[in-house]
């Protein structure tokens, strides 16, 4: 369908044309200065923005998830279940509801601005509430929040499998805490990190709710583009082309990533 054309009344005409793809990569016939064609980076920018957001989200999520997973894996076995349970509760709360919670926090009148206001008041610094909602930062925070548990669980699974005697051996051989972590813990937990990255990176690439609600019209991602082509603009051929590109992008990234680090079997466990 992505090779087809849109008829004036919104139906799909099945031909073979690459128009949708050239349009996606910047070829435009809708030029300001009367030229027949020109370069319009609109859609290329959307693709790039989605990719960089997915990379940043994954990095932040790993940074936040690792210490927590490490803490749970090192906790007393009887307490581990309780800590895991506490990670599961936000995960099982509906996706849409979690975005809504952040919308309330990030608003100009929201809790974050109120708390910042108190602190600034105590320090006698003049404070004007920050405009946080409908910015790229808000979308990043929302994405990190949504997908954090998907990283904690696989990292925990692989950390928990590590034999305690390995730490003792490392200590006996004279490694300090940092060295033990870098040479023993981190390499052995890589399968968990890989699995978590796959579980985070791919959905972030395709999600449109977070950017829709926390990003407003400012932050448009591939997901929003596809959704609009299908439901508002009624050009499913262009939407199909965009989703094919999205699929190829995630598959390519996953392929190279797993080839470098191996495929995490922890995916199934999570």
């Amino acid at each position, binding site marked *: 369908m992505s090779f087809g054309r849109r008829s004036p009344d919104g139906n799909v005409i099945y031909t073979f044309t690459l128009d949708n793809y050239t349009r996606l990569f910047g070829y435009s016939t809708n030029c300001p200065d009367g030229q027949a064609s020109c370069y319009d980076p609109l859609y290329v920018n959307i693709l790039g923005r989605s990719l960089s957001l997915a990379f940043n989200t994954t990095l932040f999520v790993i940074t936040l998830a690792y210490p927590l997973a490490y*803490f749970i894996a090192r906790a007393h076995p009887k307490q581990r279940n309780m800590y895991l349970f506490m990670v599961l509760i936000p995960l*099982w709360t509906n996706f*849409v*509801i979690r975005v809504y919670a952040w919308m*309330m926090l990030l608003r100009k009148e929201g809790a974050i601005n109120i708390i910042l206001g108190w602190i600034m008041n105590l320090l006698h610094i003049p404070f004007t509430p920050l405009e946080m909602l409908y910015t790229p930062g808000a979308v990043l925070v929302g994405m990190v*929040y949504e997908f954090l548990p998907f990283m904690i669980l696989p990292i925990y699974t692989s950390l928990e499998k590590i034999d305690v005697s390995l730490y003792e051996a490392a200590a006996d051989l004279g490694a300090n*805490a940092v060295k033990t972590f870098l040479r023993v813990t981190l390499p052995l937990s890589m399968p968990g990190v890989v699995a978590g990255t*796959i579980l985070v990176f791919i959905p972030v690439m395709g999600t449109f709710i977070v950017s829709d609600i926390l990003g407003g019209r400012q932050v448009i991602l591939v997901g929003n583009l596809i959704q609009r082509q299908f439901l508002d603009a009624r050009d499913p051929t262009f939407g199909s082309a965009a*989703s094919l590109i999205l699929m190829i992008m995630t598959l390519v990234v996953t392929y190279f990533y797993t080839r470098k680090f191996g495929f995490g079997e922890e995916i199934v466990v999570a």
Partner: protein
Amino acid sequence: MNPFRRSPFVIVATILVYIFLYAPIIGLVLYSFNASRANVTFEGFIPAYSQNVVMDGSLVKSSPCGPFHWYCELAKNGDVAEAAGNTLTIALVATIISTVIGTMAALALQRYNFKMKPFSQLSLYIPIVIPEIVMGIGVLTLFSQFFGWVNEAFNLVGDGRLSLGIATVTMSHIAFMVPFVTLVVQARLQGFDKSYEEAAMDLGANEWATFRRVTFPMILPGIMSGALLAFTLSLDDFVITFFTNGPGSTTLPIYVYGLLRRIITPQVNALSTVWILVVFMAVLLLQILQNRDSKQHL
């Protein structure tokens, strides 16, 4: 070296991450008691009980339910009840069907060698490695094309036309849940000792009796956890439902999303709070059941 030793850095980071995980939820619950209908700032709890709802501008002064005003409003909201009913119906039907199909697929992949086996195994990972939105538009396209042809071929008009609704949502859910169930049941089958089945056959049980009396009870925990995963995936699903639902098949996530794009009253918070409580109870119950189960096996 004490294996349970944790550095202060890890402890502080853990506390911060837990705060990050829970702060939004606590805020959400707090605002469900908001006296302000506009729900922009927190204007305190609703102070008093009274026969009728008393409003002052957008502030609720008193209500028959007192601070729980928004929960009572929620209970009276017919749209919410309908959406909740749809959500549960779809989740139940889709879970049962996908669990049966998924279990059969797992057994087939475990026992038989066939030409397409590597391909079938690999295709189980499709819902994991392909963004959900691609699946969503995929099924949407499939349904709308197919329905278009059928409606044209049989000259269906008006209410007789095939259109998107509960059936399409359920079918799409089954399609994306089957691989997850299969993977979970497969993980359980991996440790399955075939000699039990052989023993049953030697003792004269036919294939069906062997399955029913030996294999099935042994893999039941795997099937149950697969079913549970499927059920939660279905309850929680937004993207695929978003593309395949039609008039009358709104589910709770779709309903909440619709509200977020229009007016938001504390009712949305009340709905979210109830949801969180239900999930909390379900996870707690599950943990207790699992603990009891594992103790029995010891």
